[in-house]
C-alpha cells in the first residue's frame, strides 16, 4: 500500500477547509468515495478530486504533495495515523487534533495546534501567530501533545495553552505564553516583548535573556531536579531540544497580575 497522496491541481483562489481529509475520516472509504468528498472553499463546496489529483490507497498515511497557505484545518480532529505536508499549510493546522503525527515541511499559518490534545505536530519551518493558542471564543488553547517548530513562531505563542509541550527552536514573537494556563513552552531563540504576560501557571523555558514586565518576579538562580526529568523525556525527540542538559536556571515567577503560579526559567549559556 502506498500513501494516500493529494496533489493540488492549481493554487486555489479561496481558502479550502481540509478537515475531512484525515486518516480517521477517510478510514474504510474507497478511492471513489474519497474523490467525492465535498470540501468547503470560500462560499463553494467542491469535490476533493476537483481540487486534488489523488493517488495511493493507505489512508493511515496521508501526504499533501504540494501544500500551500490556503489549505486550512489540515489534520483537524485527527486521531491516529500520519499526515505529511510538503510545502506550506494554512491556518488551524492540527486543530483539536487528538492523536497521530503531522509533519509539515514548510511554514504554518496562524492557530496551528489550537485545541490539540495529543500526538505530535512537527513544523519544519515557521509557525504563524497564536501557535497552540485558543481561538477566539475558546477558553483553552492546546491541551496536550507535543509541538516542535524548527523555525520561528509568531506572536502570542501558547496563549491560553492548557497542557502539553511546545518547543520552538528559533525565535518567538511578542507575548509568548500570554495567559498561559499550564504546560511547557521552550524557546531556544529570542523572544519578543513581554513573554509570560498574564501567565497563570505553566513553565516557559528561555535560553536568551527576555524583556520581562514588572509583574514577573526574580526568584534567583536554582538547580531544579525536575529539569533532569524533562531533559530525559526530550532525549528521543527530533530536534535541538534533545540535547538539553541544563538543570540550573534563573527562575522568574508570575504573572503576579494573574495568580502568579507560572514560571519563566532562563538558562545561562
Amino acid at each position, binding site marked *: 500500500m502506498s500513501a494516500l497522496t493529494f496533489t493540488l491541481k492549481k493554487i486555489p483562489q479561496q481558502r479550502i477547509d481540509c478537515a475531512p481529509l484525515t486518516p480517521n475520516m477517510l478510514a474504510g472509504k474507497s478511492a471513489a468515495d474519497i474523490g467525492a468528498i465535498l470540501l468547503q472553499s470560500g462560499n463553494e463546496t467542491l469535490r476533493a478530486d476537483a481540487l486534488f489529483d489523488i493517488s495511493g490507497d493507505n489512508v493511515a498515511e496521508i501526504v499533501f504533495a504540494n501544500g500551500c497557505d490556503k489549505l486550512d484545518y489540515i489534520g483537524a480532529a485527527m486521531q491516529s495515523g500520519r499526515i505529511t505536508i510538503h510545502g506550506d499549510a494554512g491556518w488551524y493546522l492540527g486543530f483539536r487534533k487528538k492523536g497521530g503525527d503531522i509533519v509539515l515541511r514548510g511554514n504554518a499559518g496562524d492557530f496551528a495546534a489550537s485545541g490539540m490534545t495529543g500526538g505530535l505536530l512537527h513544523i519544519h519551518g515557521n509557525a504563524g501567530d497564536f501557535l497552540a493558542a485558543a481561538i477566539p471564543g475558546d477558553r483553552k488553547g492546546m491541551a496536550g501533545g507535543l509541538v516542535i517548530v524548527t523555525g520561528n513562531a509568531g506572536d502570542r505563542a501558547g496563549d491560553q495553552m492548557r497542557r502539553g509541550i511546545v518547543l520552538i527552536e528559533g525565535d518567538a514573537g511578542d507575548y509568548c505564553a500570554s495567559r498561559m494556563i499550564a504546560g*511547557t513552552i521552550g524557546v531556544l531563540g529570542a523572544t519578543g516583548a513581554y513573554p509570560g504576560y498574564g501567565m497563570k501557571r505553566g513553565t516557559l523555558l528561555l535560553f536568551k535573556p527576555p524583556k520581562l514586565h514588572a509583574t514577573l518576579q526574580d526568584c534567583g538562580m536554582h538547580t*531544579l531536579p525536575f529539569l533532569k526529568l524533562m531533559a530525559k523525556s526530550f532525549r528521543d525527540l527530533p530536534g535541538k531540544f534533545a540535547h538539553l542538559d541544563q538543570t540550573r536556571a534563573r527562575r522568574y515567577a508570575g504573572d503576579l497580575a494573574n495568580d502568579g*503560579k507560572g514560571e519563566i526559567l532562563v538558562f545561562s549559556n
Partner: protein
Amino acid sequence: MNINGVLIDDTFAEAFGMRGTRVLITAQNLKWAHIAAASMTGFATSVIACGVEAGIERELSPEETPDGRPGVAVLMFAMGSAVLMKQLETRMGQCVLTCPTAAAFSGIEGGDRINLGKNLRFFGDGFQTSKQFGGKRYWRVPVMDGEFLTEEKTGMVRAVGGGNFLILAESQPQALAAGEAAIAAMKKVPNVIMPFPGGIVRSGSKVGSKYKTLIASTNDAFCPTLKGLTKTALSPEIESVMEIVIDGLSDADVRKATHAGISAVCELGAANGVRRVSAGNYGGKLGQFHFHLREIMA
C-alpha cells in the same frame, strides 16, 4: 534431606497474600538516598504492630533512576490496600519529604495506581506545581533546600508475605553468622525484602498466647532455654535459632530467595555449627502459599 551436614526438615513455610508496592528514592548521593530509605522503612518489621513490612530492595545506579541520581528501591507490603496506601503516604510525608535532597518515584509500572506524592503536594501551600512528562505526573513542592520532587502515583500489586525459614545451630554466634550469610545471598535476589532487623528475627512467634490480649507470643518450641519445659522442636545440641522472614512481589520471588538463603546456610554446613533448617507454619490452614523446603532445595 541433608546438605553438607545440615538436615533440611520435611516441612514448609506458610505465607500469605499481601499487597506490595515499590518506591524509588533518589538523592544527591547514595548516602542520603539510604538515609531517606532507612527512615522510611524504619519500624516496619512486621504487620502485627507496624502496619507494613518494608525494606530496601537494592541500590540503583544513576542510569536506573528517573532523575539520573543515585538511589535505592524500597519495597513495602501490607495485608490490605487501604493500610498500605495510608502507610505509604505517612512514611513519604515524614521520612522522604523531610530528608535533604531526596526525591521519590514510582517503582512499579502497571498494577493498581496508588498515591505516592499526590497529597504531599498540599505541603506546598499553593506554591506547588505539577509537570507531566511521558504520560506521568510529577509534583514539585517548594521546600527549604530547594524543591521536593515526587511522582504522583506508584503501582500496587498482589504480593506474598511471610515466607520464612529457621536456622538451627550449635551456638548463638554460629546461628547469627549463618543468618548473615543467608541475608547476603538473598539480597542479590530481586523483588524481595527481609524486613526484620538486619534481615534476621531472633524472636520468632507462634499464634496466640496465654494472655488474652496478645495475638502472638514466643515460639517456645524453638526456644533453646525451654527445652526441658515445653514440647520442644530442638535436639540437645541446638543452642540457638534464627529466623529469616521473606516478603516478595510473587511466590516465585520468595521461592528464589528461600533457595538462595538456605544454600548459603548449607554452604557453611555442620562444620560451622549449622545443624538444621526448618520453617514456620500454622498447619497449612491459614496461608495461601506453602513453600516446602525439600522441594525448593531439590
